[in-house]
């Protein structure tokens, strides 16, 4: 998994060096400008909806449809939109619900998957390969498949409209088990043997030795998990119908239906607000995240 990232870096280094040294540097430079232009255009396409959202949130309702891409902002109206978004619906409640749910899910996911992944990677026991095959199999099942039985179960237990209902289906993550298992596999066996001889319990081997080396993988998975569950609309829509437990995306829907059906400025302000935490998180964890998905473990 490391190679694609590594080699693309190496390639661009080669390109840079050649551009400086060869007589045909001009042509090279041209190529590079071309490449960057192409990349910039693609980035712009990806970013467009996001920028549009920010622009819309800073405009007067009349201008939104007349000149959607004009750069004339009405800052006062913008502030009003943002304050309005907070007042029109319990935005703070949505954010707190979202935080509780994503952190709750992440904690349980980490505890369950790290234990399972360590066992699958480093402990010999009968039936290990079959269990691992099940994990891979579980990766292929779309979330919609178990939705109905889960809903019925939660409804029968009277647990709809709770945090537990929001989190429960995600407590076990096959993806996390798979990711961590691959990462732990590369942890040297001799270190684990040495630790067993020194008297570490298996729990201490995981927490004191394996986990510190797995930080990038944990960071990467955390970002995947937090983003996915912060943005999830499908499951909250099924199990929640009171405002008190709505997560941000569900809250947005409720907002559109109930209060601000046509007030797109305010709607976009609300959308910007709920995206901010994710953006900040990604900025802080960027390096770890990239390390994690390129799987450059350790020597």
């Amino acid at each position, binding site marked *: 998994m490391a190679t694609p990232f590594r080699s693309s870096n190496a390639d661009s280094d080669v390109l840079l060096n050649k551009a400086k040294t060869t007589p045909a540097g001009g042509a090279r430079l041209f190529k590079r400008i071309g490449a960057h232009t192409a990349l910039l255009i693609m980035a712009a396409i990806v970013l467009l909806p996001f920028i549009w959202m920010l622009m819309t949130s800073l405009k007067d309702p009349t201008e939104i449809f007349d000149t959607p891409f004009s750069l004339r902002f009405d800052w006062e109206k913008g502030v009003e939109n943002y304050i309005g978004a907070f007042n029109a619906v319990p935005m703070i409640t949505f954010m707190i619900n979202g935080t509780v749910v994503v952190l709750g899910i992440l904690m349980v996911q980490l505890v369950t998957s790290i234990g399972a992944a360590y066992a699958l990677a480093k402990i010999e026991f009968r039936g290990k390969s079959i269990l691992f095959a099940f994990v891979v199999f579980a990766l292929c099942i779309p979330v919609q498949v178990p939705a109905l039985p889960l809903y019925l179960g939660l409804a029968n237990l009277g647990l709809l409209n709770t945090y537990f209902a929001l989190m429960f289906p995600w407590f076990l993550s096959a993806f996390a088990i798979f990711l961590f298992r691959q990462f732990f596999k590369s942890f040297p066996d001799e*270190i684990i*043997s*040495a*630790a067993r001889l*020194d*008297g570490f319990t298996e729990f*201490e081997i995981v927490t004191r030795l394996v986990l510190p*080396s797995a930080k990038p993988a944990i960071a990467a998975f955390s970002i995947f998990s937090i983003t996915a569950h912060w943005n999830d609309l499908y499951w909250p829509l099924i199990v929640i119908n009171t405002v008190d437990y709505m997560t941000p995306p569900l809250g947005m829907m409720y907002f559109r239906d109930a209060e601000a059906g046509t007030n797109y400025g305010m709607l976009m302000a609300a959308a910007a607000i709920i995206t901010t935490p994710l953006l900040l998180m990604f900025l802080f964890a960027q390096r770890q995240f990239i390390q994690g998905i390129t799987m450059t473990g*350790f020597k």
Partner: protein
Amino acid sequence: MIDSTISLSKIVKKFDATPVLRNVDLNIESGEFLTLVGPSGCGKSTLLRIIAGLEMQDTGSVFIGGRSVDHLRPKQRDVAMVFQSYALYPHMTVAENITMPLLMQRMSFAQRFPVMGRWVPGSQHIQKNIRKEVETVAEHLHIEKLLERKPGQLSGGQRQRVALGRAMVRRPLAFLMDEPLSNLDARLRVKMRTELAELHQRLGTTFIYVTHDQVEAMTMSKRIAVMMDGEIVQLGTPDEVYNDPQDIRVAQFIGSPPINILPGEVNSAGNLSLFGVECRYRINGSNQKNVKIGVRPEDLQISEFKVGLIERGGLRGWLRRLENLGNEYIAHIDMDCDDGHWQIAVRFPPEELNGIGQPGAAVNIFLNEAKIFVFSETGDRLSGEAMLQSAVEKAS
């Protein structure tokens, strides 16, 4: 004195269906330095891991200090292991690495719990004692200046010392060393060899030292166990293993350049001949016809070719290459006979060089029958004796 004998009784281990250890018996005395040597993949590491309790044998028993330890977990067996890769804990400093075994041994699970453990009664006092012992060990190994570094910041030799420190600090009954020097460069390896031997003398504990390097095996211990294909084929002093190999694989593995193996024939009277030339050697009570003759490079004599010498039992060969090692020469000789083509190495001191040196030149080779080993086709040693010159002459 503490009993730190280690005994293995009929150890068998298979991975899936592949037998890796077949019926290994071994007795190591208290305080002995025993070297276990054998080619890669012969099961040395597996045997050490079974002694340490990291791997379970299929059948057979391990005794440490006279009691069976088969039901004990690795930490309860009170042995320390040094690994080829050193296996230092990568995110801990050198001090923490050496501290860990003591921490795990002396503190309860609650006491050693990170952060919280500090408030569990007794933990502070233990911590202080441990710190002192770690410093003592570090001084012994001259790594006291490195205590705050991480393993990644150390050289190979330094890591090796830290690994030794971690093994020593809890004063185990025995040390198991799995090719501890093989990742060091040649010069450092020689130095560490001496240091390990001294360490053994100072500690007086049982050492089992695993290596695939026959030079290490020959120089480091009083007894060597030679292991081949999951079996201990010979156990003895370096002298016995070199001068009295009981198996052709032992003869081939020990010694550099390796022993020459030549095709021999035995007639009905038990007399041995090599390339059709009769030797002054008789096999005792064996009905083998074709045998293998092992002769070490230094037990052959070489001289310039003279027709007359052939009649006196010399063999003819052609010099392919001559290596000058300063204090000795090694001649590589081609020999052709009815059975095919053979290459022989001869080792001799510079005084005996007289005239040898032209590649392609014919040379005479003489066998010293008193020093040859005869093996059956399956590789077992056959007993026999060299006949004195006078006896041969009388017979003929």
